[in-house]
């Protein structure tokens, strides 16, 4: 399998806090990689480093042969990196249709694409995420589940090669969570995207991920198939304490 993303010895500190400490891993094309770790382990910071919100202190990030370590976030997006947020961040004053149209317009440099062309394309992604009937609803008026769907539609509209999904199941009831997982699986099949999935719900990762990377206090402590990770004594200790390990 072709390697799509390689993270080499990436570190980031905020003042005295080492949020990400010398983390290295890679993702292969078409793979679903799980990223897990207790709260504050540095998962979201790692995503922020790869998507360009923060710049790394040390290390480098290679995406499809390009060194993106110092690239601006919008350039990383145009190369094919997209993301969703742990706490959904839909554009509050934009309708669902316009939110996705923005991604369709700017996510990739397309020739001869007007706003209306983008809006037409956006309807396809909204339909895919089951939000077509909500196309004229403002972002702030969507429910949590709908907002997560909108984030996925927005991310897909940029025609990404790699999507970072940040705790898609958080705050959803079991039925909604299952729908969200199925949606991700369908997105992977239909659009051929590679997924890096942050999740606390182990059952979901066990089913969906081919490999899992575990972070603890900013350091990578384990990497391997989900079954192996679930039985790793150190991972169990980090999550549940030494008496359960």
């Amino acid at each position, binding site marked *: 399998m072709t390697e799509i993303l390689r993270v080499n010895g990436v570190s980031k500190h905020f003042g005295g806090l080492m949020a990400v400490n010398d983390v290295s891993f890679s993702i292969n094309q078409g793979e679903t990689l799980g990223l897990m770790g207790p709260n504050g382990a540095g998962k979201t910071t790692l995503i922020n480093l790869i998507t360009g919100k923060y710049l790394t202190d040390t290390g480098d990030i290679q995406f499809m042969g390009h060194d993106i370590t110092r690239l601006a976030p919008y350039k990383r997006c145009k190369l094919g990196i997209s993301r969703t947020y742990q706490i959904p*961040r839909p*554009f509050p*004053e934009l309708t669902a249709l*316009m939110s996705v149209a923005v991604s369709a317009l700017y996510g990739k440099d397309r020739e001869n694409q007007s706003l*209306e062309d983008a809006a037409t394309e956006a309807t396809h992604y909204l339909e895919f995420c089951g939000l077509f009937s909500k196309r004229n609803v403002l972002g702030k008026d969507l429910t949590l589940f709908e907002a997560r769907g909108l984030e996925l539609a927005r991310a897909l509209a*940029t025609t990404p090669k790699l999507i970072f999904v940040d705790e898609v199941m958080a705050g959803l009831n079991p039925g909604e969570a299952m729908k969200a997982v199925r949606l991700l699986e369908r997105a992977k099949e239909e659009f051929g995207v590679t997924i890096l999935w942050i999740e606390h719900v182990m059952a979901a990762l066990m089913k969906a991920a081919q490999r899992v990377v575990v972070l603890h206090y900013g350091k990578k402590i384990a990497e391997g198939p989900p079954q192996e990770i679930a039985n790793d004594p150190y991972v169990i200790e980090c999550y549940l304490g030494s008496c359960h390990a």
Partner: protein
Amino acid sequence: MEFEVKREKLVLRAGKQKFEWHIEPRYWRNPLIYVGLLFLLPIVTYFLYPQMLPTIIDANLLAAIAIPLGWMTLGTGRMNFGPQFFIGAGGYAAALCSIHLGWPPAVTLLVAIVTGIIFGLLMSPLAILSGGLYYTLLTLLFPLVFLEVTFIYTDIFKGDTGLFGVAPMINVGSFTLNQLMICLLSLLMMLLYMFIVDKITRSKFSASLAAINDDEEVAAAMGVNVNKMKIISFAIPATMIAVIGWFYAHYYSTFSGITYLPLTFMLKVLMVSMIGGRVQIYGNVVGGYFIAFLELLLGMVVGDYAQVVFPIILLVLLLSLPEGLFGLYRKRRYREYLPTLHVRR
């Protein structure tokens, strides 16, 4: 660059870019009626009560300042509290060139445009580096510092007496006819600004501006070049506002910073923007006329107390009409090809 009319749409192709706008003559009636009324007002006033022409000019110019200010607010996602800085820059540049170099208004217009571009570009990093309240305070500070500069360098800017002897914009012999011509010119300028900003807020460019206004970080993650958009949305409106400074200088044949740079003028401009509804281009016209005529009316009715009563009335209106006067109309007559771009800040 090529234009094409295709299936009731005006299509503009520039390189690899494509822009589309609807052309639907069945919706032209109301705008044409309103534009006709705006032209009719100064002509009727000229014959019936020519003393009111300066108020109409004021209204047009206030609206012409508020329209690009709306674009700036949308595109930077921040409220600029010092648009009058650019009026000062454009006005002083035009006045100084007219007095010292004897350049005619057509040439000083170019000077004002260049000045606007330079100051717009120089100040545009503010919209990237500072956010929220800091941006507002910094933009508030610039005109006041500029005002101090005009007092310090009195030999250049002539302090509070201002620069005299600027070449008049139009001279047809009669004072009232001059006023009518200037009034029509100010109206044309306001309509031109309205047309430009309207086309921009209906183009794909506006989608990125609205996204920046809502959440810069997410907009960048979705591929929008936030810094570039902010610089464009700061520098071009700044230039448009600087041209109003040129207009003031040649309209009054004098230019004084004390008239435009203090907070009182800024208050008027912001009120136009608020009363009309933020980033409501047509609302700014309503706001401009409302503020100019309210000021005139209060001056006639309460005299010197107008300075106190005027802000109180505006505050009451702001609290009771959060979406502005034009918001009332829009609620009743809602029609959009694409969902509306709202503005949060």
